[in-house]
């Protein structure tokens, strides 16, 4: 009997008797007899101590960013996470609860989501945010689908090529059955303006990212005006840490704003679980997918929190729902909530400054190396493109041998850049780390 199961042999016998069957196997008489109780060819069960050892063995076969100095970003970022975040995530009241279907005994989860919605709105300067999507990419895809529904007959989506390539991939996966046209990113070298020029009165939405995949900060105010003039919506993809300093979707006038919330206190974890932050204007609120928490009062007039506007959701609307999303990334949204609360105004700005200053220090130092060139692209946040004298894969291999995880190889997604590496510098990279990177690159 497993140590997780709380029924003893004699209790089982007693229960079977109450049920009126002779043994447990009888409970499965509805299962086709010839297929019942198949052999499962699985490894032998491990005791907890053996399992822990096996897990440590597997874990130690990976080069982690605690033991390596990491300059890889490209959509997932190595930021400092205060110990308080995980300490609170480990509270089983949070992680062993589920969707707050019974609000009277789920006020903890509900209040946390309400605060998450509020904090994300504050960060983005947007009107409304939902309880989370799977990640930044799915948030973007669902945003595009929402834009199609909000603009009625328009079925053209224009996307800038500087939007994260994987996000554009997810957008195409998500919309493949919907009869829409996606354009704008055919030429990876096209500028935001080039792409925006494709927006017409058939276009539902223009999707743009700032800071973009190559690290560049864009002034999107004029773009927004242009898009809106065409009757289309503007969907802005952004980065939560950049928002500590830079132009927000709200300032720009974006209709929909999404971002990957991972930088807000969530570990890299090989790509997930992360959290997709999704926000929009008041006007689009009732078309938004996903859960929403609102405030109300209880019988005694006390403030309380509930899931609200549920008539948009699949468990009620079924095939007419705005999305099929059900389980979301609740615990990761909580992490982002705690992180954002800890940092607050001052901390968020300071983290953004640290990233900006150290990235620029690194860019200058690398730009001074013979054979390396930092691509001139305008203002950037914490990522920049370096043209390298050799294939990037060779360089990252050499860096790894020196305890460094190098940047992202752009040659597949942006072949026109040649041997180009996207380098990311965050507050986790000290001056000393940067100097070592420069030394190895130059050495």
């Amino acid at each position, binding site marked *: 009997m*497993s140590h997780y199961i709380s*029924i003893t042999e004699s209790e*089982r016998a007693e229960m079977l008797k109450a*049920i009126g069957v002779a043994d447990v196997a009888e409970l499965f008489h509805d299962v086709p007899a010839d*297929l019942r109780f198949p052999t499962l060819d*699985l490894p032998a*069960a491990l005791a907890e101590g053996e399992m822990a050892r096996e897990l440590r063995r597997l874990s130690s076969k990976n080069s*982690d*960013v605690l033991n390596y100095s990491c300059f890889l970003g490209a959509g*997932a970022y190595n930021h400092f996470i205060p110990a*308080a975040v995980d300490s609170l995530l480990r509270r089983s009241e949070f992680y*062993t*609860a*589920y*969707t*707050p279907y019974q609000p*009277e005994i789920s*006020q*903890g*989860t509900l*209040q946390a989501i309400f605060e998450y919605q*509020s*904090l994300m709105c504050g960060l983005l*300067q947007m009107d*409304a*945010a939902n309880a989370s999507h*799977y*990640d930044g990419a*799915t948030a973007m895809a669902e945003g595009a689908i929402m834009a199609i529904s909000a603009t009625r007959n328009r079925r053209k989506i224009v996307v800038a090529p500087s939007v994260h390539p994987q996000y554009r991939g*997810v957008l195409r*996966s*998500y919309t*493949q*059955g919907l009869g829409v046209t996606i354009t704008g990113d055919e030429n990876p070298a096209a500028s935001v303006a080039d792409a925006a020029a494709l927006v017409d009165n058939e276009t539902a939405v223009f999707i743009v990212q700032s800071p973009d995949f190559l690290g560049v900060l864009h002034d999107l105010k004029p773009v927004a005006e242009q898009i809106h003039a065409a009757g289309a919506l503007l969907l802005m993809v952004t980065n939560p840490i950049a928002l500590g*300093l*830079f*132009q927000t979707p709200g300032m720009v006038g974006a209709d929909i704003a999404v971002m990957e919330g991972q930088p807000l206190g969530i570990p*890299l*974890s*090989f*790509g997930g679980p992360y959290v997709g932050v999704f926000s929009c204007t008041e006007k689009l*609120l009732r078309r938004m997918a996903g859960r929403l928490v609102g405030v109300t*009062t209880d019988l005694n007039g006390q403030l309380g929190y509930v899931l*609200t*506007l549920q008539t948009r959701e*699949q468990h009620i*609307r079924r095939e007419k729902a705005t999305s*099929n*999303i059900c389980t979301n990334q*609740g*615990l*990761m949204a*909580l992490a982002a909530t705690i992180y954002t*609360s*800890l940092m607050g105004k001052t901390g968020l700005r300071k983290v953004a400054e*640290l990233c900006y*200053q*150290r990235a620029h*220090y690194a860019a200058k130092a690398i730009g001074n190396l013979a054979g390396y060139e930092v691509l001139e692209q305008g203002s950037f946040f914490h990522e920049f493109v370096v043209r390298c004298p050799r294939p990037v894969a060779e360089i990252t*291999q050499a860096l790894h041998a020196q305890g460094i995880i190098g940047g992202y190889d752009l040659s597949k997604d942006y072949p026109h850049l040649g041997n180009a590496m996207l380098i990311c510098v965050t507050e986790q990279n000290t001056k000393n780390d940067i100097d070592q990177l420069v030394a190895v690159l130059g050495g």
Partner: protein
Amino acid sequence: TYEPPIFELSSPGKIGAALPDAGVPETELPAHLLRNDDLAGLPEISETEVVRHFTRISQRNFCIDTGMYPLGSCTMKYNPKIHEDAARLPGFAFIHPLQAEETVQGALQLTYELQNILAEISGFDQVCLQPAAGAQGEFAGILVFRAYHLDRGDDQRDEVLCPNSAHGTNPATAAMVGFKVVEIATDSRGNVDLADLRAKVGPRTAGLMLTNPNTLGLFDENVHEVAKIVHEAGGLMYGDGANFNAILGIVKPGDVGFDFMHYNLHKTFTTPHGGGGPGCGAVGCKEFLADYLPGPIVALKEGQYTRHTPAKSIGRLKAFKGNFGMFVRAYTYIRMLGAAGLRSVSEHAVLNANYLRVNLDNIYPVAYDRTCMHEVVLQGKIKGAPSVHTLDIAKRLIDFGFHPPTVYFPISVAESIMIEPTETESKRNMDAFIAAMKQIAHEAVENPELLHAAPTTAPVRRLDEATAARRPILKYDQAAIEALLSK
């Protein structure tokens, strides 16, 4: 125990984290690109206060670790504590998804082994772990069905069949892919109505989405026949794995006619639920559909683990690989249980549900009077208590210290109460639950006001959901909240 919104703890100048100095020569900021609001919407709070705030609100939650949580269809089983340590090992929690493959062989190996283990348990040929939740797994499956038919030039299939007992995600998913949803009736034994199915299946049928055991807690006795009918019409069989916890080591879905299924790692493999997520909706399929799966998938080539995307893939469904932290937990769970342990899980899950069934069915009508699987669907119709509804029974259970079961689902059963105790619940607690349900039935007749007024022992009383929806306050707004409270 009331705790104010976190914004009310803010005072100018506080901070909750210690950050270093930049330590590098300063670069000027681009003035025209800066935000203009001094981050007005963000609070300023010390670490002390932030920790206390979230600790306090956490205590306003019911959870598996505080009591029995028989939320039907959600498989709220115990979440082993080793899972939480496992996912936090440095070599798992602190690796970047875009690192070179040779620097993450351990993580890829774990992924590869989990793919194979899930395939073996379910009788499929290839598994992809990318989908983030069950609904995304469904989405992957229906996209794969679409791609398969189109690839064969079979472009008239624009319908997906769903039994009326299906989760809302099934029809919503089919619609997201652009399919028309055709609902199939349930027969008197709770199975798919074969006559209705035969009437509706045809050359427009892309596939059928079936949960088995279904949401009535029953194993569809005709599953073979259903599959045969759908397959003969050229359709495909989608298996919704929400109820997989009932049949681990009991039967393989791949053996009874399913072509594709998703696994809810957060349910069956207890990764855990996280207050609403994250989950993992891994998918598995027969060989003939494997080329259409989303990517990346991990393969083993010449001793090295590598990632690839299948040839005719529907594409990626999220950035990067998937919810890797959930892979680690599910892998840990399965490796510790082994084949016999998994079968024991399902045996006890089903034993416990049937024990509740036979103890409650004389008071609360059981929707279908058959041996159930891992959950039982009752009806909140108590003789002699016409004013009492399922909602009242649910709220009263809170006062007895239990999380209510799922209520008003499945929608095909009036006043439904869907109870899933899971295999980790003790007989002691189930007996207490039975006693509470009996007491509530008694109160419903003798003193129904007790039920209408419930709960009285929760952190708040019944909440006014109508007001919340009428004038939604979806972010902190001091004035709006004060206006609400002063009403």
